[in-house]
């Protein structure tokens, strides 16, 4: 993750943030969009602003999702997926998917 030099909530403290694993933390969709124009190996790109349980936010691509059924407030979980491939190199990163049942 990018280094956040200063945090508003910590009163402008520098380099005093602790790493926190979020891979097993669920979240809720604050808002979302469907990009029918941008390139993706799995178009259209479904993308949401996810607020994690207990704090923290990440705008992130969704996967394994029915775009037409998406609403604000839906619950999601993290999953490690392929973003792009270029020159034979695969770039993996986190996506979010709806929590089933």
């Amino acid at each position: 993750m990018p280094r956040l030099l200063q945090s508003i909530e910590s009163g402008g403290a520098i380099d005093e943030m602790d790493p926190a694993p979020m891979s097993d933390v669920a979240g809720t969709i604050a808002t979302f969009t469907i990009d029918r124009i941008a390139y993706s190996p799995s178009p259209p790109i479904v993308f949401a602003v996810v607020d994690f349980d207990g704090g923290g936010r990440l705008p992130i691509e969704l996967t394994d999702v029915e775009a037409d059924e998406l609403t604000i407030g839906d619950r999601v979980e993290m999953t490690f997926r392929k973003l792009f491939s270029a020159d034979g190199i695969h770039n993996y990163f986190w996506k979010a998917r709806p929590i089933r049942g």
Partner: protein
Amino acid sequence: MGSHGIKDQVAIVGMGCTRFGEHWDKSADDLLVDASEEAFASAGVAKDDVDAYWLGTAMSGMSGMALARPLQLQNKPVSRVENFCATGSEALRGAAYAVASGAYDTAMAIGVEKVKDSGYQGLVGAGKTPTDGTGRTLTAAAMFAMCVPAYAKRYGVDAEEMREVLAHISAKNHYNGARNPRAQFRREVSTETICASPLMAGDLRVYDCSGVADGSAAAVVVRAEDAHKYTDSPLYIKALSFVAGNCSGNADPDYDYTAFPEIEAAAEDAYAQAGVTDPRHEIAMAEVHDCFTPAELLIMEDLGFAERGAAWKEVLAGTFDLHGEIPVNPDGGLKSFGHPVGASGLRMMFEAWLQLRHQAPEERQITTDRTIGLTHNLGGYPGEMVSFVGLVSPELG
């Protein structure tokens, strides 16, 4: 904020603006010559009479030489500036503050962009800084589409009403643009056509998105006390405000995508500089950054033209139509002009220059007792944007 402003210290005494559109036969140099020549003639000055220049361009040239070469300026200072989609307004800030400081008697702000030839949308190259490759690659349309479900849910607007609101904004701006010979798209578009156009991103359709265009616009500024040496009808700068967002909306769950805090802050600062206390009842007309229809909707609330959650009703009531209480984008907006990034802010000011001095064509001249015009840019995305708000008036005091 700690800005003092330069109310009534600087006046615009001449402006120029090219037609915006597909200028396949013109380079950025040609457009700069066209806009500057019109502005020089408008102010009754020659290029040698202008002491310093500010060139706004995001991607059509680097350094002040991008202006000095086509205009063949002789030993003049030229600053080239960039600030996302507020680049043209940033050029005006530089020129106006330089004159207010006393450093120069006369300055020009000029903006240009050649976007059509690039094959891309507005801000090409602006995000080309090195990254770890995990960032999003969404279109601007998709980013602004995130405001639609957020606004609708928070204020209880159903999907059909929301579509009607966005279509009204688009139809209004096309109606105005149809009455402007400098606009790229000069046809009225019905709400039926807008609502039947192809989906681009989220709920946004083709006609909810502004276009791509080439264009240039320019302004000559002088000290207010010198203004009448140049023109009988100067436009005085009341406020110039700018906020560069810290991108906290991407990380802060308190940001809910129903407002643009950077715009609200810039507007508050501009109103304070100008002494405006009730924008809804003091602003004569506004040129705002309608890159996508939901942006214009939220901007109406950020600028204080409507209460939070009420702008959608005001849009439908015609408050911001050409002959409504506050005409918004009477020239047709980005919707009709397209968005040559470096030029748009000055294109907006050109419309304020025409409207407030009663020199707009009859078919779109607004009628009002109010005297203060507003221009506004945003650059970036919901949660992470820069914002400019400017106020001008033909009257001192």
